[in-house]
Protein backbone atom coordinates (compact mmCIF):
# COMPACT_ATOMS: atom_id res chain seq x y z
CA UNK A 1 0.00 0.00 0.00
CA UNK A 2 0.99 3.62 -0.48
CA UNK A 3 0.29 6.99 1.06
CA UNK A 4 0.49 10.11 -1.09
CA UNK A 5 0.65 13.58 0.44
CA UNK A 6 -0.17 16.50 -1.87
CA UNK A 7 -0.16 19.90 -0.22
CA UNK A 8 0.34 23.60 -0.75
CA UNK A 9 3.19 25.43 0.97
CA UNK A 10 5.31 28.55 0.52
CA UNK A 11 8.26 28.41 -1.91
CA UNK A 12 10.78 27.98 0.89
CA UNK A 13 9.29 24.68 2.07
CA UNK A 14 12.13 22.13 2.16
CA UNK A 15 12.03 18.34 2.38
CA UNK A 16 14.25 16.47 4.86
CA UNK A 17 14.23 13.36 2.70
CA UNK A 18 16.18 11.26 0.23
CA UNK A 19 14.30 9.15 -2.35
CA UNK A 20 14.55 5.46 -1.43
CA UNK A 21 15.16 6.06 2.27
CA UNK A 22 13.22 4.19 4.96
CA UNK A 23 11.13 6.41 7.21
CA UNK A 24 9.09 5.87 10.37
CA UNK A 25 5.81 7.44 11.36
CA UNK A 26 6.54 10.63 13.30
CA UNK A 27 9.87 11.44 11.61
CA UNK A 28 10.32 14.78 9.83
CA UNK A 29 9.22 15.04 6.19
CA UNK A 30 9.86 18.74 5.79
CA UNK A 31 9.38 22.27 7.08
CA UNK A 32 9.74 25.92 6.28
Amino acid at each position, binding site marked *: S*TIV*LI*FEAPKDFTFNLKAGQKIHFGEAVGSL
Partner: protein
Amino acid sequence: LHAASAAVAIRIRPLYLLLGTGGGYAGYRQYEGYKDRRLQELGLDITPRVAHTWEVAIYKSVPTRLLSRAWGRLNQVELPTWLRKPVYSLYIWTFGVNMKEAAVEDLHQYRNLSEFFRRKLKPQARPVCDSHCVISPADGKILHFGRVKNCEVEQVKGVTYSLESFLGPQTWTENLPISKTSFQDQLVTKEGNELYHCVIYLAPGDYHCFHSPTDWKVFHRRHFPGSLMSVNPGVARWIKELFCYNERVVLTGGWQHGFFSLTAVGATNVGSIRIYFDRDLQTNSPRYSKGSHNDMSYVTNNNQDGIVMRKGEQLGEFNLG
Protein backbone atom coordinates in the same frame (compact mmCIF):
# COMPACT_ATOMS: atom_id res chain seq x y z
CA LEU B 1 -6.16 -44.91 -27.63
CA HIS B 2 -5.74 -42.63 -30.61
CA ALA B 3 -8.85 -40.63 -29.62
CA ALA B 4 -7.69 -40.46 -26.01
CA SER B 5 -4.22 -39.24 -26.97
CA ALA B 6 -5.78 -36.66 -29.32
CA ALA B 7 -8.03 -35.46 -26.46
CA VAL B 8 -5.03 -35.19 -24.15
CA ALA B 9 -3.08 -33.35 -26.86
CA ILE B 10 -5.94 -30.89 -27.31
CA ARG B 11 -6.11 -30.34 -23.55
CA ILE B 12 -2.36 -29.92 -23.18
CA ARG B 13 -1.94 -27.58 -26.19
CA PRO B 14 -3.25 -24.44 -24.39
CA LEU B 15 -0.85 -25.19 -21.56
CA TYR B 16 2.05 -25.33 -24.03
CA LEU B 17 0.79 -22.12 -25.63
CA LEU B 18 0.65 -20.39 -22.25
CA LEU B 19 4.10 -21.66 -21.26
CA GLY B 20 5.49 -20.65 -24.64
CA THR B 21 4.11 -17.11 -24.59
CA GLY B 22 4.92 -16.67 -20.91
CA GLY B 23 8.46 -17.89 -21.45
CA GLY B 24 8.88 -15.70 -24.51
CA TYR B 25 7.59 -12.66 -22.64
CA ALA B 26 9.88 -13.35 -19.68
CA GLY B 27 12.81 -13.64 -22.09
CA TYR B 28 11.86 -10.34 -23.75
CA ARG B 29 11.71 -8.62 -20.32
CA GLN B 30 15.08 -10.11 -19.31
CA TYR B 31 16.65 -8.84 -22.55
CA GLU B 32 15.19 -5.35 -22.01
CA GLY B 33 16.59 -5.38 -18.46
CA TYR B 34 20.02 -6.48 -19.75
CA LYS B 35 20.03 -3.62 -22.30
CA ASP B 36 19.14 -1.10 -19.55
CA ARG B 37 21.95 -2.38 -17.31
CA ARG B 38 24.47 -2.12 -20.17
CA LEU B 39 23.37 1.50 -20.83
CA GLN B 40 23.65 2.30 -17.11
CA GLU B 41 27.18 0.82 -17.06
CA LEU B 42 28.01 3.16 -19.94
CA GLY B 43 26.77 6.00 -17.75
CA LEU B 44 23.87 6.78 -20.05
CA ASP B 45 20.68 8.00 -18.42
CA ILE B 46 17.86 5.60 -19.23
CA THR B 47 14.24 6.60 -19.09
CA PRO B 48 12.22 4.08 -17.05
CA ARG B 49 10.70 1.45 -19.34
CA VAL B 50 6.99 1.86 -18.69
CA ALA B 51 4.53 -0.88 -19.62
CA HIS B 52 2.84 -0.86 -23.01
CA THR B 53 -0.93 -0.37 -23.07
CA TRP B 54 -1.47 -4.05 -23.84
CA GLU B 55 0.68 -5.06 -20.83
CA VAL B 56 -1.35 -2.78 -18.54
CA ALA B 57 -4.58 -4.16 -20.03
CA ILE B 58 -3.47 -7.74 -19.34
CA TYR B 59 -2.45 -6.85 -15.78
CA LYS B 60 -5.72 -4.99 -15.20
CA SER B 61 -7.66 -8.02 -16.42
CA VAL B 62 -6.27 -10.07 -13.52
CA PRO B 63 -9.09 -10.26 -10.89
CA THR B 64 -6.97 -8.52 -8.23
CA ARG B 65 -9.99 -7.45 -6.15
CA LEU B 66 -11.33 -11.00 -6.02
CA LEU B 67 -7.86 -12.30 -5.10
CA SER B 68 -7.56 -9.57 -2.49
CA ARG B 69 -10.89 -10.44 -0.85
CA ALA B 70 -10.05 -14.15 -0.93
CA TRP B 71 -6.69 -13.34 0.71
CA GLY B 72 -8.54 -11.31 3.33
CA ARG B 73 -11.00 -14.16 4.04
CA LEU B 74 -8.13 -16.59 4.41
CA ASN B 75 -6.42 -14.32 6.92
CA GLN B 76 -9.53 -14.00 9.01
CA VAL B 77 -9.53 -17.73 9.76
CA GLU B 78 -8.72 -18.07 13.45
CA LEU B 79 -5.49 -20.04 13.92
CA PRO B 80 -5.22 -22.70 16.63
CA THR B 81 -3.01 -21.40 19.44
CA TRP B 82 -0.19 -23.89 18.73
CA LEU B 83 -0.01 -22.72 15.06
CA ARG B 84 0.16 -18.98 15.78
CA LYS B 85 3.82 -18.73 16.77
CA PRO B 86 5.21 -20.67 13.75
CA VAL B 87 2.97 -18.83 11.24
CA TYR B 88 3.65 -15.34 12.60
CA SER B 89 7.36 -16.12 13.10
CA LEU B 90 7.60 -17.04 9.42
CA TYR B 91 5.90 -13.74 8.50
CA ILE B 92 8.21 -11.83 10.90
CA TRP B 93 11.29 -13.50 9.41
CA THR B 94 10.13 -13.03 5.80
CA PHE B 95 9.28 -9.32 6.12
CA GLY B 96 11.67 -8.26 8.89
CA VAL B 97 9.03 -7.26 11.42
CA ASN B 98 10.39 -5.75 14.68
CA MET B 99 8.11 -7.18 17.34
CA LYS B 100 9.88 -5.29 20.15
CA GLU B 101 8.01 -2.17 18.97
CA ALA B 102 4.60 -3.90 18.98
CA ALA B 103 2.20 -3.01 21.78
CA VAL B 104 1.48 -6.77 22.18
CA GLU B 105 4.64 -8.85 21.75
CA ASP B 106 3.09 -12.23 22.63
CA LEU B 107 2.31 -13.84 19.25
CA HIS B 108 -0.33 -16.13 20.80
CA GLN B 109 -2.51 -13.06 21.44
CA TYR B 110 -3.15 -12.54 17.73
CA ARG B 111 -6.03 -14.80 16.67
CA ASN B 112 -5.28 -14.56 12.93
CA LEU B 113 -2.86 -12.94 10.47
CA SER B 114 -5.29 -10.11 9.85
CA GLU B 115 -5.14 -9.10 13.51
CA PHE B 116 -1.37 -9.46 13.48
CA PHE B 117 -1.22 -7.23 10.39
CA ARG B 118 -3.23 -4.53 12.20
CA ARG B 119 -0.97 -4.65 15.28
CA LYS B 120 -0.42 -1.38 17.11
CA LEU B 121 2.93 -0.03 18.27
CA LYS B 122 4.06 0.91 21.77
CA PRO B 123 3.28 4.65 22.18
CA GLN B 124 6.96 5.47 22.83
CA ALA B 125 8.09 3.50 19.73
CA ARG B 126 7.45 6.44 17.40
CA PRO B 127 8.12 9.88 18.93
CA VAL B 128 6.47 12.64 16.85
CA CYS B 129 8.96 15.26 15.60
CA ASP B 130 8.05 18.67 17.05
CA SER B 131 10.45 20.81 15.06
CA HIS B 132 8.98 20.10 11.60
CA CYS B 133 5.51 21.05 10.40
CA VAL B 134 5.07 17.91 8.25
CA ILE B 135 5.92 14.42 9.55
CA SER B 136 5.66 11.00 7.99
CA PRO B 137 2.13 9.61 8.47
CA ALA B 138 3.39 6.01 8.34
CA ASP B 139 6.34 3.65 8.35
CA GLY B 140 7.63 2.95 4.87
CA LYS B 141 10.00 3.88 2.09
CA ILE B 142 10.10 7.28 0.37
CA LEU B 143 9.39 6.54 -3.30
CA HIS B 144 9.43 10.14 -4.45
CA PHE B 145 8.88 13.71 -3.29
CA GLY B 146 9.20 17.25 -4.55
CA ARG B 147 7.30 20.01 -6.30
CA VAL B 148 4.29 19.21 -8.47
CA LYS B 149 4.84 20.58 -12.01
CA ASN B 150 2.40 20.91 -14.91
CA CYS B 151 -0.36 18.99 -13.10
CA GLU B 152 1.76 15.83 -13.15
CA VAL B 153 2.93 14.01 -10.02
CA GLU B 154 5.85 11.57 -10.11
CA GLN B 155 5.10 8.15 -8.58
CA VAL B 156 8.80 7.32 -8.96
CA LYS B 157 11.47 9.34 -10.75
CA GLY B 158 10.52 9.75 -14.36
CA VAL B 159 7.12 8.01 -14.18
CA THR B 160 4.21 10.39 -13.67
CA TYR B 161 0.47 10.41 -13.27
CA SER B 162 -2.13 13.10 -13.71
CA LEU B 163 -2.94 15.15 -10.61
CA GLU B 164 -6.54 15.66 -11.81
CA SER B 165 -7.14 11.96 -12.48
CA PHE B 166 -5.68 11.14 -9.08
CA LEU B 167 -7.69 13.63 -6.98
CA GLY B 168 -10.76 13.84 -9.21
CA PRO B 169 -12.77 16.98 -10.04
CA GLN B 170 -12.41 19.85 -7.61
CA THR B 171 -15.96 19.83 -6.29
CA TRP B 172 -14.94 19.76 -2.62
CA THR B 173 -14.80 23.52 -2.45
CA GLU B 174 -17.36 26.06 -3.67
CA ASN B 175 -15.17 29.14 -3.95
CA LEU B 176 -13.02 28.03 -6.90
CA PRO B 177 -10.73 30.85 -8.11
CA ILE B 178 -12.27 31.35 -11.58
CA SER B 179 -9.24 33.33 -12.81
CA LYS B 180 -7.00 30.28 -12.47
CA THR B 181 -7.13 27.94 -15.41
CA SER B 182 -5.06 24.88 -14.58
CA PHE B 183 -6.24 22.29 -12.08
CA GLN B 184 -2.98 22.67 -10.17
CA ASP B 185 -3.31 26.47 -9.89
CA GLN B 186 -6.85 26.07 -8.59
CA LEU B 187 -5.55 23.90 -5.73
CA VAL B 188 -3.09 26.59 -4.60
CA THR B 189 -5.06 29.06 -2.50
CA LYS B 190 -2.35 31.59 -1.57
CA GLU B 191 -0.32 33.79 -3.88
CA GLY B 192 3.33 32.70 -4.15
CA ASN B 193 2.74 29.18 -2.81
CA GLU B 194 3.71 25.96 -4.58
CA LEU B 195 2.23 22.47 -4.64
CA TYR B 196 4.37 19.66 -3.16
CA HIS B 197 3.98 15.89 -2.97
CA CYS B 198 5.50 12.95 -1.16
CA VAL B 199 4.94 9.23 -1.92
CA ILE B 200 5.48 6.69 0.90
CA TYR B 201 5.42 2.95 0.08
CA LEU B 202 4.44 0.63 2.95
CA ALA B 203 6.07 -2.81 2.60
CA PRO B 204 4.19 -5.95 3.80
CA GLY B 205 6.13 -6.11 7.08
CA ASP B 206 5.63 -2.45 7.96
CA TYR B 207 3.31 -1.12 10.63
CA HIS B 208 0.15 -0.47 8.60
CA CYS B 209 -1.70 2.18 10.56
CA PHE B 210 -1.34 5.79 9.42
CA HIS B 211 -1.52 9.05 11.31
CA SER B 212 -2.08 12.72 10.66
CA PRO B 213 1.04 14.21 8.98
CA THR B 214 0.34 17.73 10.28
CA ASP B 215 -2.18 19.90 12.11
CA TRP B 216 -5.01 20.23 9.57
CA LYS B 217 -8.78 20.12 9.06
CA VAL B 218 -10.24 17.40 6.86
CA PHE B 219 -13.23 18.72 4.89
CA HIS B 220 -13.91 16.01 2.34
CA ARG B 221 -13.41 12.33 1.50
CA ARG B 222 -13.44 10.88 -2.02
CA HIS B 223 -13.35 7.09 -2.42
CA PHE B 224 -12.29 5.77 -5.83
CA PRO B 225 -13.09 2.04 -6.18
CA GLY B 226 -10.59 0.55 -8.60
CA SER B 227 -8.01 -2.11 -9.34
CA LEU B 228 -5.78 -3.52 -6.66
CA MET B 229 -2.55 -3.92 -8.56
CA SER B 230 0.67 -4.22 -6.61
CA VAL B 231 2.21 -0.84 -5.74
CA ASN B 232 5.68 -2.09 -4.91
CA PRO B 233 8.45 0.16 -6.26
CA GLY B 234 9.17 -2.16 -9.21
CA VAL B 235 5.54 -1.97 -10.41
CA ALA B 236 5.39 1.78 -9.67
CA ARG B 237 8.40 2.17 -12.03
CA TRP B 238 6.69 0.05 -14.68
CA ILE B 239 3.04 1.12 -14.81
CA LYS B 240 2.44 4.81 -15.53
CA GLU B 241 -0.73 6.18 -13.85
CA LEU B 242 -0.67 3.17 -11.47
CA PHE B 243 -2.03 5.22 -8.57
CA CYS B 244 -4.94 6.40 -10.75
CA TYR B 245 -5.95 2.80 -11.51
CA ASN B 246 -5.92 1.54 -7.92
CA GLU B 247 -8.60 1.75 -5.24
CA ARG B 248 -7.85 4.77 -3.09
CA VAL B 249 -9.31 7.16 -0.51
CA VAL B 250 -8.51 10.87 -0.96
CA LEU B 251 -8.87 13.12 2.11
CA THR B 252 -8.73 16.83 1.31
CA GLY B 253 -8.75 19.82 3.62
CA GLY B 254 -6.64 22.72 4.76
CA TRP B 255 -3.63 23.48 6.94
CA GLN B 256 -1.85 26.67 7.97
CA HIS B 257 -0.50 27.23 4.44
CA GLY B 258 -3.61 26.32 2.45
CA PHE B 259 -4.61 23.11 0.63
CA PHE B 260 -3.62 19.75 2.16
CA SER B 261 -4.49 16.19 1.10
CA LEU B 262 -3.62 12.66 2.18
CA THR B 263 -4.44 9.72 -0.11
CA ALA B 264 -4.32 6.08 0.98
CA VAL B 265 -3.82 3.81 -2.07
CA GLY B 266 -4.74 0.11 -1.72
CA ALA B 267 -2.84 -2.83 -3.21
CA THR B 268 -3.47 -6.51 -3.95
CA ASN B 269 -2.72 -7.89 -0.49
CA VAL B 270 -3.97 -4.77 1.28
CA GLY B 271 -7.26 -4.02 -0.38
CA SER B 272 -9.15 -2.43 2.48
CA ILE B 273 -8.68 1.06 3.83
CA ARG B 274 -10.20 2.25 7.08
CA ILE B 275 -10.53 5.90 8.17
CA TYR B 276 -11.31 5.92 11.88
CA PHE B 277 -13.64 8.95 11.79
CA ASP B 278 -15.51 7.78 8.68
CA ARG B 279 -17.70 4.79 9.48
CA ASP B 280 -19.59 5.03 6.17
CA LEU B 281 -16.48 4.26 4.10
CA GLN B 282 -16.64 0.77 2.51
CA THR B 283 -13.63 -0.18 0.37
CA ASN B 284 -12.88 -3.27 -1.77
CA SER B 285 -16.55 -4.19 -2.09
CA PRO B 286 -17.50 -6.72 -4.81
CA ARG B 287 -19.57 -4.37 -6.98
CA TYR B 288 -18.53 -0.95 -8.23
CA SER B 289 -18.90 0.96 -11.48
CA LYS B 290 -15.64 1.67 -13.30
CA GLY B 291 -14.44 5.25 -13.14
CA SER B 292 -16.90 6.15 -10.38
CA HIS B 293 -16.11 7.77 -7.06
CA ASN B 294 -18.20 8.51 -4.03
CA ASP B 295 -17.82 11.67 -1.98
CA MET B 296 -18.49 12.56 1.61
CA SER B 297 -18.24 16.06 3.09
CA TYR B 298 -17.25 16.37 6.76
CA VAL B 299 -18.36 20.03 6.82
CA THR B 300 -21.94 20.32 8.03
CA ASN B 301 -24.09 23.24 9.08
CA ASN B 302 -23.18 22.86 12.71
CA ASN B 303 -19.60 21.77 12.04
CA GLN B 304 -17.89 24.21 9.68
CA ASP B 305 -14.45 22.99 10.75
CA GLY B 306 -14.76 19.47 9.37
CA ILE B 307 -12.57 16.92 11.20
CA VAL B 308 -9.76 18.62 13.14
CA MET B 309 -6.61 16.43 13.11
CA ARG B 310 -3.51 17.04 15.28
CA LYS B 311 -0.06 16.10 13.97
CA GLY B 312 0.58 12.41 14.85
CA GLU B 313 -3.06 11.61 15.71
CA GLN B 314 -4.29 8.18 14.57
CA LEU B 315 -6.11 8.57 11.25
CA GLY B 316 -6.67 5.13 9.71
CA GLU B 317 -5.26 1.77 8.71
CA PHE B 318 -4.79 -0.61 5.80
CA ASN B 319 -6.23 -4.09 6.21
CA LEU B 320 -5.55 -7.39 4.45
CA GLY B 321 -8.17 -8.29 1.86
